[in-house]
């Protein structure tokens, strides 16, 4: 029972994921999962370390492009492609994070945004990304050279496993002593420093972990859809992930997942119903969020439950 209690959130996600494809269009669920993982990775930084990175699309996009490149140019298997994407995103996170964590607050956010914009313009001009046409026609390939991911059902299982793995890892990090140190840095950086923690190193490790997981999300998205485009590295995507996290509930384990579901499903389902009003509606949701439920959907519900 303790196992169930400890992993209640994860287990309920498994149940939801097992039922979801029978109720909803599987490709939409896969997309939601990719963005949910992205938002969870972002939440590790904003929610648990207190660092607002405003350029997280850089790592998402870096993972997306490099995996796409590895899959098309070198015809690697998907697991190696994913690994390549994750490693690239992590390295990029180490470089960008190493520069950005030297400053705090708004300056940190601006530096991450500036560096992400540099990557955007690099992707716009670099020959292998295809510029504004995007990197197209990425094959899904065969997992370990054996399992053909071309089938949507197989791909669904694969994406679900990647998501659950990423989610479990983040959950594990948050609960670990390392995660406790991150939280203490979030609450009071000076005090954490005075207790003898090397705050910069902790921040950097959190940043790299977050970028690697964001890269994993981007890489999985490329495999699912078969392309990577400039949207993946665009600042708008960085903004979207902030929105998802805030709407769902910053600093809660499940919040970013719920936020991603809300935003992605709205984007998709409203696209053919209200047309150009999608952005207005998303903006309105954000305003309502800030005015009425600042803790986000999950944050508010948790607060209610705890009160009673």
């Amino acid at each position: 029972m303790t196992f169930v209690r400890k992993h209640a959130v994860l287990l309920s996600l498994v149940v939801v994921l097992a039922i979801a494809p029978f109720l909803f269009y599987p490709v939409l669920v896969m997309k939601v999962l990719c963005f949910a993982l992205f938002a969870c990775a972002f939440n590790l930084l904003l929610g648990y370390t207190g660092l607002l990175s405003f350029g997280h699309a850089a790592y998402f996009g870096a993972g997306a492009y490099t995996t796409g490149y590895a899959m098309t140019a070198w015809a690697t298997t998907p697991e190696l492609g994913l690994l390549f994407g994750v490693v690239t995103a992590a390295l990029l996170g180490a470089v960008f994070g190493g520069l950005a964590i030297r400053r705090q607050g708004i300056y940190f956010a601006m530096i991450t945004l500036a560096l992400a914009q540099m990557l955007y313009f690099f992707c716009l001009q670099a020959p292998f990304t295809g510029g504004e046409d995007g990197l197209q026609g990425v094959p899904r390939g065969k997992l370990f050279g054996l399992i053909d991911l071309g089938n949507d059902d197989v791909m669904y299982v694969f994406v679900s496993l990647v998501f659950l793995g990423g989610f479990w890892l983040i959950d594990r990090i948050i609960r670990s002593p390392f995660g406790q140190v991150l939280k203490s840095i979030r609450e009071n950086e000076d005090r954490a420093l005075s207790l003898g923690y090397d705050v910069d190193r902790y921040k950097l490790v959190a940043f790299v972990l977050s970028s690697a997981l964001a890269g994993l999300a981007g890489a999985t998205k490329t495999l699912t859809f078969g392309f990577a485009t400039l949207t993946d590295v665009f600042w708008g995507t960085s903004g979207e992930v902030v929105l998802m996290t805030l709407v769902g509930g910053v600093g809660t384990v499940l919040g970013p997942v719920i936020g991603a579901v809300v935003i992605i499903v709205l984007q998709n389902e409203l696209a053919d119903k209200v047309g150009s009003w999608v952005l207005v509606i998303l903006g309105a949701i954000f305003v309502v969020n800030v005015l009425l439920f600042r803790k986000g959907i999950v944050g508010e519900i948790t607060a209610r439950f705890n009160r009673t």
Partner: protein
Amino acid sequence: MIKLSLVLGVAMAVLIAACSKSDDVDEKVTDGAIRIGVLTDMSGLYSDIGGQGSIVAAELAVEDLGGEVDGKPIELVSVDHQNKADIAAQKVREWIDRNGVDMVTDALNSAVALATSKVVAEKKRILMVTGAATTRLTNEDCTAYTIHHSYDTFALANGTGTAVVKQGGDTWFFLTSDYAFGHSLETDTANIVKKAGGSVLGAVRHPLSASDFSSFLLQAQNSKAKIIGLANAGGDTINSIKAANEFGLTETQNLAGLLVFITDIHSLGLPVTQGMYVTSGWYWDLNDETRAWSKRFFERMGKMPTMIHAGVYSSVIMYANAVKATGTDEADGIMEWLRNNPQSDMFGKNLTLRKDGRLVHDMYLMQVKDPSESNAAWDYYNVRQTIPAANAFQPLSESRCPLITGGSS
């Protein structure tokens, strides 16, 4: 904690269920109807040249067809892809898998068109691109199920390049947007200008979405070239045209827009754009047929159609004709029929589908009118030259399409 996560899980499920309920379509109807999807940008930078107008154009086509083909109703669906290829590809996949969409049209934005073409080819449906300009659609990324309808960057560069040199504009200087699209537009046009006997005096690269064009324009002015070729798009084109006027460039030199739509001319106004050369696949004031159609369009939209709108109309008509002739909505048969039977409609005569997916038709070189010549709103162009279909597009012999070269796709 368990209780909480259960509640959240159920809430999540209910939320998605509520939103995707409308997608469940009775499977039997799928075969009994012709479903056409308009994939366009309703809110972003392309919404003027496509957007709502594309939907209206498709509706006009359905009306002209009497709403049915051989007793089978034509149904339209549309989506705002928000200029995101992932939304477009996922939505089109869903359209085909769950809603039984047979043909997708418009597909503005080259990343969207390329991503969608892969999905459509995989599912064996048909994509008629009237919005996107990239020649990759009929070269490296061609498929047997994509038709590139109204125009492409080669046709624009070719039309403007050749024709302007013939009209006496034999020295060129390029103002180029510094990324792949700008570079390829510049190279294509420069080659064409040289082939036609002109010379290129130089080029200057400006960053994407530049705010200040003054130093670039001074270089263009100093080059003393007769023609300044604008190898950029959208806001950059508009801003560079405005700046060129402020600097008095247009008094001594002529601008040649390589990707300019009539809506751009409309928003800039004739005093700023007069004398500029533009290539287009279609213009509302070409003949009685186009004028009559555009009048109907204008009544609903309050503005004149672009060549993309006319292309959407034409693509729906073409598709319906093919379904009628073949008696099926099976994609291979329809593509085969279209390749063998050139079509004529309001968009143009003798629209011929090549094996690489390029729909070949006449293109037109326009010059923007003097404000004194223009009799009414939207009366903007003088047709200077008709570029015959045979010379308007990239020759099939130069195509890098695997279907032509025989390589694996």
